[in-house]
């Protein structure tokens, strides 16, 4: 009973892959103490596209640039979770570097200087509760939670005759809702989160003269993520994830919106 319960809630982290693996978990040589949380590690890597659009009017409908500053690059993520019945605590660290930038207009694309770059380092904490009430289908579970995140991002934009560099420090607090479905060796998870952001921005404009401006701003963030889990061993699962993130940052005399699309593949290990 205890092991079955553990397996059920591990699915919150591992996308239900381990839910049918209750028997396998039961074979673990040293079962955890009754109140000890299950520990889950996940490492993944992949690819992210980053698209930045200047905003002239942030009131809906948002008036964003018809041109996107679009870059791509590798992303690496490491996650650590502590799972108890019906609840999850998870810490994650993600770093992404985007390069190979272009201006993309929908009808053409123009390469940007190789110095154009965008770098992101994000740390976040998730707390989730599994909904006790059934949502209508067997093996389909709902969950809600909150997420706190901090991110540091650096932009470098080499214009002809001027260089823009920017360092943003953002903190956000999000409401998260999720659905989870699992069957045999495969699990499917979807989650949606909306966050309010606080931003501290330092921007440096270097041409024949140098100007530096810093200030506070606010923003929003929406994540839509899906994960497919495939159990490949009793304690190990392969996970493929897709994240689509939309953001808006509103500052004094300036605003921007960006979109990030991330595909990663990785491994989850539970003990």
């Amino acid at each position, binding site marked *: 009973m205890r092991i079955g319960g553990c397996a059920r809630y591990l699915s919150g982290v591992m996308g239900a892959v381990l839910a049918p693996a209750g028997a396998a978990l039961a074979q673990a040589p040293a079962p955890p103490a009754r109140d000890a949380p299950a520990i889950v590690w996940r490492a993944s890597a992949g690819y992210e596209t980053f698209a930045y659009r200047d905003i*002239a009017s942030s009131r*809906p409908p948002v008036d964003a*640039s*018809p041109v996107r500053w679009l870059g791509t690059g590798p992303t690496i993520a490491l996650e650590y979770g502590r799972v108890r019945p019906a609840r999850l605590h998870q810490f994650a660290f993600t770093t992404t570097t985007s390069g190979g930038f272009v201006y993309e207009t*929908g009808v053409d694309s123009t390469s940007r200087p190789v110095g154009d770059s965008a770098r992101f380092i994000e740390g976040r904490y998730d707390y989730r509760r599994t909904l006790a009430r059934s949502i209508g289908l067997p093996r389909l579970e709902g969950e809600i939670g909150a997420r706190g995140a901090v991110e540091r991002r650096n932009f470098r934009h080499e214009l002809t005759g*001027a260089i823009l560099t920017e360092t943003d420090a953002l903190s956000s607090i999000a409401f998260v809702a999720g659905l989870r*479905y699992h*069957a045999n060796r495969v699990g499917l998870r979807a989650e949606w989160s909306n966050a309010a952001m606080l931003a501290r921005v330092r921007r440096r404009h270097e041409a024949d003269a140098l100007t530096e401006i810093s200030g506070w701003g606010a923003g929003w963030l929406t994540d839509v993520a*899906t994960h497919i889990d495939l159990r490949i061993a009793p304690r190990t699962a392969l996970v493929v994830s897709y994240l689509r993130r*939309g953001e808006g940052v509103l500052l004094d005399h300036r605003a921007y919106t960006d979109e990030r699309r991330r595909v990663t593949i990785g491994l989850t290990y539970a003990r």
Partner: protein
Amino acid sequence: MRARGGHIRASLIVLAFASSACHTILGPAPIDRNWTVHEGPRVSFYVRPGSFAELNVARLIDVLEDQYSVTVSALRLTYAGRVRAFAFNSAADADLSSTYSGRAFPDNEAFRFVCVAPLGDNLFGLMSHEANHVLIINGLGRARTYFMTEGLASALLSERFHSAGRQFLFPWTKSHRSQLPALSRLIDDGEWGRVDSQVAYNVSASFLAWLIDSRGSDSLRQIYSATSSELPDRIKTVYGRPLEALEADWLRFCDTWAV
């Protein structure tokens, strides 16, 4: 069999949940793809196929290339990037409130505007104003008052192809003396939005055009990035006179302007 049907239904629910969340109220519209591109030396024009803008794109490029040269020269900018101009067929097409509207996106080196007949002062002035935002902000960085941001974009209008610059601004100032708000009000970002926008744009442009003509652009660059609260002291330091004294000089100049 029943289990398989359950899996499919469950998967569809999960996917529907994810896709319905994609649309957020605060997100931008997707990139518009209905454009034909015409290249100038430093400007790329994106026009609707078969539109008024496409029929006149050669003239539009000429006007914008001239404006580019004038602005860069007036402020001694090192910026030399390619600017992308997007010409919309109507206010509705551009999702803007009026035909005489445009928006600039300096970080993406682009701007958009409504391009309708006639091919004259209003259209050229609007287009050049928006282009100036891109040129000035990428050349000098962001200004920190609406007074400077909007005023300078119109103050530097070239008049080779139209008369929406000084030829319009100084006589307009003279003829609207009784309606002009004090500059001390306009430099305050908190007050800027309370003044009729056309008046605010014209007054700030007229004053800054006079300031550049009479005192040069080097001094202007020194006050360019000041905030509302910093600007009065910065003006006094750079020009040696308070804002009110410069305002009086500017109004006297406009009063004597002969058309």
